[in-house]
């Protein structure tokens, strides 16, 4: 069970060069919009021709520019789930699901359709037309339609992007269940960090058409190898960095020197810390109680969401205005309730184990 991809294609504004390998576990492709995620899926599905490279699925060559092989999309056995379902509006739910297996024997076709109807909780909707379904139902029909021919690989292109929050979580649960029972290679493209983390064990990070990180999801999120990856995995705070000694780094944009845990790799260009990893305390901790990497801080601005609060914090001196801050700090509403009446300065701790050292 393996998909190997190594393709290149030139575009006016960027060059796509993607190498990836996926096995039994779902692989997530994370990247900003325009990074080449959709293009990669389309190339694997045979809807877009790369300029050079090779695509192989379970030892079967789907595309090989050096041998002049390029299988037509219909012969690849690759299922693709589109952002906006792409159902056939003139066919009923049943007919949509049966579309890819209509050449099978009638009984087998009917069996697979009813199997998908049951698995995707679509019973009662068999004779509806796509326009008469809710967004979540439409996407479930699309998933059933893609799975019915039992494709060797299933590619999901931002499967939840057209749905509202409630339906998203429902469909996500459904999809997790489906992928767990799916006997093939699964690729999930998304720019939503949490969804892709929950769905995929392995991740590939794309930026401007190139793979900039790959590995287990824990590694990618805990130790992003570069600044772009840290940014794409949701890190909010960055500072240019200068090495002082093997254990200490000067954060030029934050105006402080920090002890770091891992031995400083040669010339880290940037330091990063996630917004929810900065620890705040009030009243200001005494130097003995504070521990390392703790600095007096002042709040420049706040932004409240229903369950958490983002604080814009300046280290070492009172902020002169709402945009005069060094760090974004995310805390829960409960923490905020405890903190907010405390007198300034507060304490901000940037735990050495929480700091990323990022080569450029």
């Amino acid at each position: 069970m393996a998909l190997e991809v190594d393709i290149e294609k030139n575009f006016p504004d960027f060059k796509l060069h993607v190498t990836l390998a996926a096995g039994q576990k779902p692989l997530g492709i994370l990247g900003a919009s325009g990074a080449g995620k959709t293009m990669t899926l389309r190339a694997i599905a045979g809807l877009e021709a790369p300029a050079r490279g090779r695509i192989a699925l379970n030892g079967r060559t789907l595309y090989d520019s050096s041998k002049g092989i390029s299988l037509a999309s219909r012969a690849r056995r690759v299922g693709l789930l589109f952002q906006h379902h792409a159902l056939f509006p003139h066919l009923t739910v049943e007919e949509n699901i049966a579309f890819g297996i209509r050449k099978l024997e009638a009984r087998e076709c009917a069996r697979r359709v009813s199997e998908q109807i049951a698995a995707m909780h679509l019973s009662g909707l068999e004779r509806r037309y796509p326009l008469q379904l809710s967004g979540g139902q439409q996407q479930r029909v699309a998933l059933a339609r893609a799975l019915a021919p039992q494709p060797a690989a299933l590619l999901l292109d931002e499967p939840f992007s057209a749905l509202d929050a409630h339906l998203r979580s429902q469909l996500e649960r459904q999809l997790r269940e489906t992928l767990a029972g799916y006997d093939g290679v699964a690729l999930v493209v998304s720019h939503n960090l949490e969804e892709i983390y929950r769905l995929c064990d392995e991740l590939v990070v794309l930026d401007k058409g190139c793979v900039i990180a790959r590995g287990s999801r824990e590694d990618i999120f805990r130790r992003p190898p570069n600044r772009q990856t840290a940014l794409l995995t949701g890190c909010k705070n960055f500072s240019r960095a200068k090495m002082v000694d093997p254990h200490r780094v000067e954060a030029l944009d934050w105006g402080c020197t920090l002890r770091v845990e891992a031995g400083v790799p040669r010339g880290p260009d940037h330091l990063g810390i996630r917004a929810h990893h900065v620890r705040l305390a009030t009243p200001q901790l005494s130097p003995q109680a504070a521990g390392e990497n703790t600095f007096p801080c002042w709040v420049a601005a706040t932004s409240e969401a229903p369950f958490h609060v983002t604080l814009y914090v300046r280290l070492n001196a009172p902020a002169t205005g709402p945009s005069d801050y060094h760090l974004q700090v995310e805390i829960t509403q409960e923490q905020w309730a405890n903190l907010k009446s405390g007198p300034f300065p507060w304490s901000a701790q940037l735990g050495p184990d929480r700091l990323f050292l990022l080569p450029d």
Partner: protein
Amino acid sequence: MSPDFSPIWVSLKTAFTATALVLVLGLAAAAWRLHRRSRLWELLDGALLLPLVLPPTVVGFFLLVLFGRTGPLGRLLWRFGVTVVFSWPATVIAATVVTFPLMYLIARGALEQVESSTLDAARTLGSSEWEVFLRVALPLAWPGILAGTVLAFARALGEFGATLMLAGNIPGRTETIPVAIFFAIEAGDTRHALGWAAVVLVISLATLAAMGAWTRYQRAYLVRGPVRAERSQRGA
């Protein structure tokens, strides 16, 4: 005097034949053109659309040059013993050439409206390009194409200039209703002209009514689904 109804049959026969031809040709050209986006094709587009903007008499003149006994096509056909000019097929050729751009434009527009991701979905589900066209593109573009067909039929029925140039006015063979009206007026026979005008009006109204019925059916088609679903639920 027994009135000669032959122009009605000539007209209907010509219009139906030309519409059928133009439906196939226009659709084929539109489907063929759909995924081709080079400059060369744009030039070809211009050539295909020319009969729409040229005066019909000019189109007729070109056809006459082409199919005349000294023309390139005419000479070729002459060898096989076929003469096109002033024969019934000439009325069909004239009507087909004049209505082709209409059909081509409308069919292309209707096919372009079909979402490309829907077609891509069919491809990943194992369909050949031909199946994608037949099972997805065509059914989804069908309402537009049908409207184009009705327009083409109406235009073919009214075709006058090119027909007269290429097919002339041979009663019972090439004399269509518009041509009959013209010659009736020229001969000062207003009564006959009025009669033919009434016939054209009836056919045109019938065409419009058919189109209206089709539009209503199309709207009903969109809501037909829930009715069917409810029925099946009640039955269950």
